[in-house]
């Protein structure tokens, strides 16, 4: 019912506006078309400058209201993210000046040079000096931005530091699977045709002994504060994207083509809760590449913790091998059955 009422009201408003507009045409015939055209010109000229003033006020107001909700109010959570932020400020300064300057000039000119019987237009068809000036100045400004940008780009996409820990993250509709290499520090091989939705979500090849201590979890990715981490990014089905807004980085997950990304977490999750003043704060992994109907709910969690907490957490993790073959799990089997491998695992834990 309200729907029809709304439509009726909208149509009514339309009719009123239309009648006014129609009447204005008759009025202009009465007043003389030229006179009324000039009046309209004055009104629009005034609106130009009014729009400029209100618009600049709006920009300021919008910033007042919204700046506090962006990520820029507190530090980036990664060492590399801090560089993104500083680059962002430089770019904002350069583009901000140009934005304000050109918008003022545009609307001010429109207002200032509105039609007037007194003005004789200035026939000014070209000027090489001017054109060279405004080719070179943008070119210089852009060179500066490109240099800053590329230095960061090569850092971000370059080799991860040697002491980086490696975590594999695999996207699937609609969630994330994390894999740690286990005590041997190496990932076992996998093949997608081995994937079993229940017992082998990544398709690990059990014949490869390196897989036997790999830890696979879908709960959360644990990272260590201050320790660089290299993510090896995969996808199981369609293209996803590991979006880490707090760390200011993202990278696509492409089926068949692993990608990598590295960064150094700067604050633990607990510290970020304090910094942001939000007790519910979490490092969220958002899927940033359209991946199907559940795209909007494809969330992962990263827990950044201290080294000690990380070691404690890792000690509680069971190799995925044991989930697939419970009979090989030493905690299920008699001690006499334990293999050499498991003994090793336990020693490590």
């Amino acid at each position, binding site marked *: 019912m309200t729907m029809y009422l709304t439509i009726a009201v909208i149509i009514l408003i339309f009719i009123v506006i239309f009648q006014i507009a129609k009447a204005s045409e008759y009025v202009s015939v009465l007043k003389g078309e030229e006179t009324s055209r000039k009046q309209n010109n004055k009104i629009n000229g005034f609106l130009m400058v009014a729009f400029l003033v209100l618009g600049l006020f709006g920009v300021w107001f*919008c910033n007042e209201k919204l700046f506090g909700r962006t990520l820029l109010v507190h530090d980036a959570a990664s060492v590399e993210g801090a560089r993104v932020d500083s680059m962002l400020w430089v770019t904002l300064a350069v583009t901000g000046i140009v934005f304000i300057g050109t918008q003022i000039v545009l609307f001010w000119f429109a207002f200032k040079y509105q039609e007037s019987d007194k003005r004789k237009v200035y026939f000014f068809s070209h000027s090489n000096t001017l054109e060279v000036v405004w080719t070179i100045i943008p070119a210089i400004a852009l060179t500066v931005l490109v240099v800053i940008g590329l230095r960061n780009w090569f850092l971000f996409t370059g080799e991860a530091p040697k002491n980086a820990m490696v975590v594999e993250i695999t996207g699937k509709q609609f969630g994330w699977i994390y894999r740690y290499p286990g005590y041997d520090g190496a990932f076992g091989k996998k093949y997608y045709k081995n994937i079993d939705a229940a017992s082998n979500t990544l398709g690990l090849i059990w014949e490869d002994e390196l897989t036997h201590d790999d830890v696979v979890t879908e709960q959360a990715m644990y990272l260590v504060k201050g320790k660089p981490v290299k993510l090896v990014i995969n996808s199981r089905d369609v293209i996803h994207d590991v979006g880490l807004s707090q760390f200011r980085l993202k990278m696509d997950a492409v089926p068949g083509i692993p990608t990598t990304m590295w960064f150094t977490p700067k604050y633990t999750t607990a510290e970020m809760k304090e910094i942001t003043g939000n007790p519910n704060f979490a490092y969220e992994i958002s899927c940033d590449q359209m991946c199907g109907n559940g795209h909007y709910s494809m969330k992962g969690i990263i827990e950044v913790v201290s080294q000690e907490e990380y070691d404690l957490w890792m000690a509680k993790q069971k190799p995925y091998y044991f989930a697939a073959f419970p009979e090989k799990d030493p905690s299920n089997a008699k001690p006499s059955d334990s293999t050499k491998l498991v003994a090793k695992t336990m020693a490590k834990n």
Partner: protein
Amino acid sequence: MSNEAVLHDNHSHEHAHHDTFITKYVFSQDHKMIAKQFLITGMIWAVLGGFMSVLFRLQLGYPDSSFPWMEDLLGKWAKGGHITPEAYYALVTTHGTVLVFFVLTAGLSGTFANFLIPLQIGARDMASPFMNMLSYWFFFAASIIMMSSFFVQTGPFSGGWTAYPPLSALGDASPGSKSGMDLWIISMALFVVSSLLGGLNYIATILNMRTKGMSMTRLPLTIWALFFTAVLGVLSFPVLLSGFILLIFDRNFGTSFYLSDIFVNGVGALPNEGGSAILFQHLFWFLGHPEVYIILLPAMGMVSEILSVNSRKPIFGYMAMIGSLFAIAILAFLVWAHHMFVTGLNPFLGSVFVLLTLLIAVPSAIKVFNWLTTLWRGNIRFTPGMLFAIGFVSLFISGGLTGIWLGNSALDIHLHDTYFVVAHFHIVMGVASMFGMFAGIYHWFPKMYGKYLNNTLGYIHFWVTIAGAYMIFWPMHYEGLAGMPRRYYDFSIWESFKQFQDLNRFISVVSIMVFAVQLLFLFNFFYSIFKGRKVTTLNPWKSNTLEWTTPINPGHGNWVGEIPEVYRWPYDYGKDGVDFTPQTTPVGEEESQH
């Protein structure tokens, strides 16, 4: 049609006689009628596409409310008055596809290239009127097929307008990728054919059919812009088509161009190995980026013309304007991978694309400064067309500057696929081009229909739309700076993004209002065709270009008698104290050189 006999005498056109309803309004080969067909079809799509955005904005603004009327309208796609994720993504996808291709490509260059090229270069029609007609009817067929995809059981395609495989290739990964996607590809393929037929025609016409004296450097900037647009389209659309053909093979014939190592939930591992999902993105963006300029250049051309006419001043830096169009057209082909910085691209390759991308800012800056200088010391008439042209410049600045952020890969790695991108391309490509299109409609409506649009409605249309467009898209930059991803149906589960709920509601309310004002424009348009104020002078804007030398309602063939000869460039406004000097006026003896 009083001029038919004359035309006949001038043996210029074989179609001038015996127009039936069918040949005049349906299968017309008159470029002006084809232009109107493109325009009206484009407007229908714009309304549908805009309405789709209203529907999904309601979801974003009011995720907890239910709208019973939506269930009446969409049935199972809005059970309980609550739009489903499937429907949301289908609407977002179709909104993008139709606005980019059907409205801002076909509706913009289809309309104005067809309408203005013969009229402004002094030709009686296109090089091949028949091909021109086919171009429209391929577009029409594409439209019908795109619409029909809304009625298939599994719904229309819902994987985003960029149609990245594997999502777009696997019906099991998304219901929209079943028969909805087949229709989407067929529709797009027909659309590519349409734009190729059109583009070849535009190029041939501009190069071969200029009237006597109309050298390339005497062409209005609209024609230059439309020329580069057509070249871009002809060179890039075939690549998109090839990408789609490979996609059809992957979907239906078991090939693995784009597919590799895939395990689909509930289905199992697929046999495809060795393909590259990234290959499609290269093919897609090789069109996709020039496409941005296919959308933008016609608007730039028309704005240059309209700014000059209504400032009563020559366009500043005519040759620089052509040069910057040329530079943009070349660079448009060399920057496609800036859409792919986060795909795992080779970092060196990425750095080359950063450099080339930011280089585009230079010709863009030249254009902006030249437009500003055109206004300087002019005598500005605020016709509705002029208002929209000024609005275009404002929006082009605002959206262009954020391109400098996104083109710099190290920033893109943070902002990619967030609302910052949504804000950027809507302002610079969507709204700005739409403003160019409105400017063109208001300016050339008197030539199209022999009537004026209502000015007061035009003023209301402009001021509400520009204020609204900024209110919608400006705050989105902040959402992007918070990392808020695009194409999310609901943000309530996200600790990082849910702080924008009230803002999303505000944006939704404004977008509904702006949409309503577009309907007002639509009403103005159709009302004025029939009941608008009649045009009584040949040259209502006191313009120099050739289209205003034709009769008020030109017949097929455009000019009665000889096509006029051209003696000068089109921008002699205010020269030697003379308000305007049409291109057809011979150069006087004591006239100064510019």
